C-alpha cells in the first residue's frame, strides 16, 4: 500500500487537472454513449493501455534525463520478433515461452545500451541517436522477418494480453500496474532517480557533483529499452504475431502522453503519477473517438494538435513572465 499512500499525499495541481479531465470524459461519454462504460469497451481499453503506456514511461525516462527516445517503437517490434522467433524455434513449451520473453528483454537491454553508448560516450545528440536507432532496429527486424509478420505464436503466450482475470482485467494490465509501482519507487526513492533528475536539469552541474554522467545515461536508456521490449512482448501477445512496423503511430502518442503528463521536453522535470494519469486521459479520448466512429486520420490530426496546444498552454505563462522581467 506504500506507493498508493505516497501517490495520494503528493497529488499536485497538474495531476488534479488530468484527473478532472478523465472524470469529465467518463461522465460525458457515459451519458451519451452508455456503451462506453460497457465491459467490452473497458476490456479493450485495458488491453491497449499497457502497450503504449509502458512505451510512454520509456519516453518519460529519456526525457527526464535530458534526451528523447524515438527508437522505442523500433525496440518494441524487434523484441516482439525476437520473442516470436525463439518461441517458434523451441516450440510452445513453457520453457520456450520463458526463454522467448527473456530473449526479448535482453534485446531491449542491448538496444538501450546501443543508444546509451552512442549518446553518452560518442556524444551524438539524443534525437539523432534514437532516430538512427529506430532505423537500425527496424532494419534488424526486417532482416529477421524479410517483411511479413511472424504468426502462429503459442496459445499460452497470446493469453498474456488476451485472457482475462475474473472476466474483465487482462493480465497485461497487471504488468502495467507492476511497472508503475516499480518506476515510482525508482524515480522517487532511489539514488538513481535523484541522479537522473539532476542530470536532466543541468548536466554540467551534475558532473561536478560527482555523478557519473556516462553510467547514468547508459542506465537510463537501458531502462527505457527494457520498457520498450516489455511493450513489444505485450503487443506480440495481443496481436498473436510480430512484425517490423506495428504501432508506428505510437511515437507521437508517447511523446504527447509524456508532455501532457508534465514531463519537461528540456529535461529534469516530470513525475510518474503525472504520466500515469496522462495515459488514462489519452486512452479515454482514444476510446471515445472509436465509439463515436471518428476516422483514424482525424485521430492523428488531433494528437498533433493537442501536443502543440498543450505545449503552448504550458509555455505562454513562462513567456509572459520572462517579458515582464525585461
Amino acid at each position, binding site marked *: 500500500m506504500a506507493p498508493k499512500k505516497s501517490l495520494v499525499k503528493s497529488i499536485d495541481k497538474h495531476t488534479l487537472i488530468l484527473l478532472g479531465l478523465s472524470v469529465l470524459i467518463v461522465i460525458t461519454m457515459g451519458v451519451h454513449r452508455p456503451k462506453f462504460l460497457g465491459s467490452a469497451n473497458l476490456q479493450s481499453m485495458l488491453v491497449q493501455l499497457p502497450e503504449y503506456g509502458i512505451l510512454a514511461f520509456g519516453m518519460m525516462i529519456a526525457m527526464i534525463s535530458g534526451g528523447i527516445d524515438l527508437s522505442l517503437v523500433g525496440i518494441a517490434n524487434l523484441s516482439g520478433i525476437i520473442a516470436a522467433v525463439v518461441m517458434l524455434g523451441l516450440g510452445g513449451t513453457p520453457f520456450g515461452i520463458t526463454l522467448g520473453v527473456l530473449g526479448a528483454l535482453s534485446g531491449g537491454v542491448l538496444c538501450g545500451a546501443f543508444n546509451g553508448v552512442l549518446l553518452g560516450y560518442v556524444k551524438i545528440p539524443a534525437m539523432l541517436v534514437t532516430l538512427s536507432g529506430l*532505423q537500425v532496429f527496424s*532494419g534488424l527486424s*526486417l532482416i529477421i522477418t524479410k517483411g511479413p509478420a511472424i504468426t502462429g505464436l503459442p496459445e499460452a503466450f497470446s493469453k498474456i494480453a488476451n485472457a482475462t482475470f475474473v472476466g474483465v482485467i487482462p493480465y497485461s494490465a497487471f504488468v502495467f500496474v507492476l511497472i508503475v509501482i516499480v518506476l515510482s519507487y525508482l524515480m522517487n526513492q532511489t539514488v538513481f532517480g535523484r541522479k537522473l533528475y539532476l542530470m536532466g536539469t543541468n548536466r554540467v552541474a551534475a558532473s561536478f557533483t560527482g555523478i557519473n554522467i556516462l553510467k547514468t545515461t547508459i542506465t537510463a536508456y537501458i531502462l527505457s529499452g527494457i520498457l520498450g521490449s516489455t511493450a513489444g512482448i505485450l503487443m506480440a501477445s495481443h496481436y498473436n504475431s510480430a512484425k517490423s512496423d506495428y504501432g508506428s503511430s505510437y511515437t*507521437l502518442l508517447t*511523446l504527447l502522453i509524456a508532455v501532457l503528463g508534465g514531463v519537461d521536453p528540456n529535461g529534469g522535470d516530470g513525475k510518474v503519477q503525472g504520466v500515469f494519469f496522462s495515459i488514462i486521459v489519452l486512452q479515454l479520448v482514444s476510446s471515445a473517438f472509436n465509439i463515436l466512429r471518428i476516422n483514424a486520420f482525424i485521430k492523428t*490530426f488531433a494528437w498533433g494538435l493537442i501536443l502543440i496546444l498543450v505545449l503552448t498552454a504550458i509555455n505562454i505563462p513562462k513567456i509572459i513572465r520572462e517579458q515582464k522581467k525585461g
Partner: protein
Amino acid sequence: MNAKIKQKLLSNEAIVVYIILLLALIIGAVNPTFISPATGINLLRTMLVTLIFALSEMIVIVSGGIDVSFPAVSCLTMIATIKFLLATGIDSVPITYGIGILIGATFGALNAFLITIIKIPPLIATLGVSSLTSGATLAFLGTKIYTDLPEKIDTMHRISIFSYTNPAGNEYSMTALILIPAILCVLIHLMLRHTMIGRGMYAIGGDIQAAHVVGFNVAKTRFFTYILSGILAGTGAITYMILMRVADPKVLMGEEMMVIAAVVIGGTRITGGHGTVIGTILGVALLALVKNNLIILGVPTHFQTFVVGMIIVFGTSITSIRAKRIAEQAKI
C-alpha cells in the same frame, strides 16, 4: 600552404568523396556496365528531389534546429495543389509551383512561430506539425492517389537537356527538372557564404547568445530560415509530383530519415553552426549510390533499412568524435 592542402584532403567533404569513389570502384568491379553515362543519369534522377529536401533540411540544421515535418507538408502540398488545379482547370507549371511555394512557406512560418515565439523544442514542434498535417491531409483532403495530372504538368518531365543511348539501344534522357536543384544549390550556397542572413544562420546555430550579442536578430533569422525551408519543401513536393507524374497523400512519409541522414553524412553538424551545400550534395549522392546499387552488391533489399541506419550511425560518429577531439584540443 602544405597544411592547408592537408586540411582539405582530410575534410569531411573529402572523406565522403573517397567513400563514393571506393564504392563506385567496388560496384564497377562487380558489374562493369556500372561505369557508363546511364548510371550518372539514373543517379541524378534519384538525387533530384532528395537534394531539394536536403537543402531545406540543411539550412534548418545549420541554424540549430531540425525539421521532421517536411514529408507531411510536402504530401499536403501535392494533394492540395492537384485538387486546386483539377477544380479550377488551370494548367500552368509556374502557377503550380507558386501554390506549392505558398503552402510550404505557410507551414514554414507555423514551425517558426511555434519554435521562436512559443519556444517549443524544434523536434517536438515539427513532430506535432507533422502529425497534424498528415492527419489533416488524409482526413480532410482524402486518401485518393491522383495520376490524372493536367496535361502541361504531366508532360513537363519529358523536356530533357541531353540524352544517351547505350549500345543495347536503351535511351536514357536527363530531365530538365535537374536544373531546379542545381540552381537552388548555387543560390543557397551564395546565400550561406556571402549574405548577412546566411552568416546569421551559422551564427545562431553555433551559439545563440553570442549571435544575439553580436547583433543578429535571432527571431528574424529563424523565421527566414524556416520559411525558406518551407518554400524549398514546397518546391520539392511539386517537383516530385511532376517527375513521378503522381500526387500521393502518403508517399513521402518517412523520407525525413533519408534526408537527415544525407545532410549529416555531408558534414552538417546536427548541433548547428556547421554545414555546406557541397557536403550536402555529396551526402545525397552517397546515399543515392547505396540505394541504387545494394542489389548489384548482392545485398538483399530487406537489408536496406539496416544498412542506411548503420551508415548514419557511422557518419554521425565520425563527425561527433572529430568535434569531441577539437573541443578537447582547444585548451590554450
